[in-house]
């Protein structure tokens, strides 16, 4: 599993000013349009915040669910790499405190297990693993892992008890962009009508596609507008199952023969030269 972090939305700055200016011009143009003026029955755009709230509520209400995602991260967002990461991620959740996630990319396979008592991180390719105590809910898991170890499990924002709150923690504004048609990619899959929302935050803008009929999140494209080249994270969701059949054993890591346990270093212990640090 790669440590994916659904983007944090940092401060809007010059981009916001430009965006607001563009929106202002667009509204001005729309307002002065003769067709617009002559059509008083034209429907107002859907309420973007309401759509986001509904999508979040749907996830929050699911007790056991699973989904898959295809995630691409531009190289500029990856430390020490010059090639974009292309990963397939699968997440299984049992509320309130269990999650299993596996991510496969060109760099190998990572797995994360949390069963409400422990958290295990696995490098399947190297057969390394680390297990640390973690008696907490999913919300607590995400916060504690991030706080102590400096990362979050893949797509963690989507398994929290209140995704809406998490979205709004990161986004200042939610805007309705328009309709869209989304296909999961397989040749036989039917396209899904979606709402396209723009979440604007600090340094990042995210376009989120939400299914019109099922309120499920289908796609997320986050653009880091304050970084050179405006790198992106692109996530396409598939195979949502809000009534997944799971067993408790799926969330507890059992080391296979030959697996090597290695330390999971807290970020607080990583300062300075590790060789000198460990020699003390």
């Amino acid at each position: 599993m790669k440590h994916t972090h659904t983007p944090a939305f940092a401060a809007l700055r010059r981009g916001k000013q430009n965006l607001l200016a563009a929106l202002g011009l667009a509204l001005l143009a729309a307002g002065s349009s003769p067709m617009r003026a002559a059509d008083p029955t034209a429907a107002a755009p859907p309420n973007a915040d309401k759509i986001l709230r509904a999508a979040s509520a749907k996830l929050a209400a699911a007790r056991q669910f699973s989904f898959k995602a295809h995630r691409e991260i531009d190289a500029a967002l990856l430390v020490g790499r010059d090639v974009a990461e292309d990963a397939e991620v699968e997440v299984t959740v049992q509320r309130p405190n269990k999650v299993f996630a596996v991510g496969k990319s060109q760099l190998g396979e990572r797995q994360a297990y949390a069963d409400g008592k422990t958290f295990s991180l696995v490098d399947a390719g190297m057969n390394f693993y680390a297990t640390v105590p973690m008696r907490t809910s999913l919300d607590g898991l995400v916060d504690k892992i991030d706080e102590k170890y400096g990362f979050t499990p893949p797509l963690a924002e989507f398994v929290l008890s209140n995704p809406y709150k998490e979205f709004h923690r990161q986004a200042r504004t939610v805007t309705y962009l328009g309709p869209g048609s989304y296909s999961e990619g397989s040749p036989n899959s039917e396209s899904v009508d979606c709402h396209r929302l723009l979440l604007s935050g600090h340094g990042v803008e995210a376009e989120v596609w939400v299914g019109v009929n099922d309120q499920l999140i289908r796609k997320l494209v986050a653009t880091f507008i304050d970084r050179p080249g405006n790198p992106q994270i692109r996530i396409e969701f598939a195979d949502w199952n809000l009534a997944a059949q799971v067993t408790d054993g799926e969330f507890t890591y059992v080391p296979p023969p030959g697996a090597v346990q290695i330390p999971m270093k807290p970020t607080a212990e990583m300062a300075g030269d590790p060789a000198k640090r460990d020699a003390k």
Partner: protein
Amino acid sequence: MLELGQFIHKHIQLMKLFANSFPSSRPGTKPGLLLFIAAVALLLGGSQSYAARGYYGGKTVAAAGPNGAVVAGPNGAAAVGRNGGVAVAGSYRPPVYSSTKVVVAGPNGVAVAGPNGAVAVTGGYHPPVYSSTKVVVAGPNAAVVVQRSYAPCYPYGYVRVVPTGYTTVYYGGYNCYFVGGVYYRPEFYGGSTVYVVVKP
């Protein structure tokens, strides 16, 4: 570590710079907090931290050390991260990026210390700054937003890949990889597998 005399001199110098940078009548600023942060930064900066003062366009501007930071802009503010922060600002000065922590202050901005190391800040017209770990951003109204970390930066002494030709050995109580006279000890850091470079 710094000599005591050097430390006191630098501390006083920095206190003066900060004092000059924060008119007490300006609302929304917290010179007390910044002075505290600056003092802590000096204490934690170790031998590599230093204070400096330069001039740009006839105004006092900031200077930053590799492991510590100092700052002073005409209307700027500054603070320093726990693990060697970075520095700072002043009017018309761009923000500063750090591989560890970042502290930045824009014109009329304020500096804020985050819970896990001071990272920081700004307001004014400067863009926000990303840190590889946490970021605390203060807007014009001093609203603080703490973001989750994204991609980790690997500290000195860690590598992502072990050179080819290694042999697996048990060294120092750990399973390691040995190649080129160097041991590489695997650890998870920031969700990724990294290797500590151990030179016997």
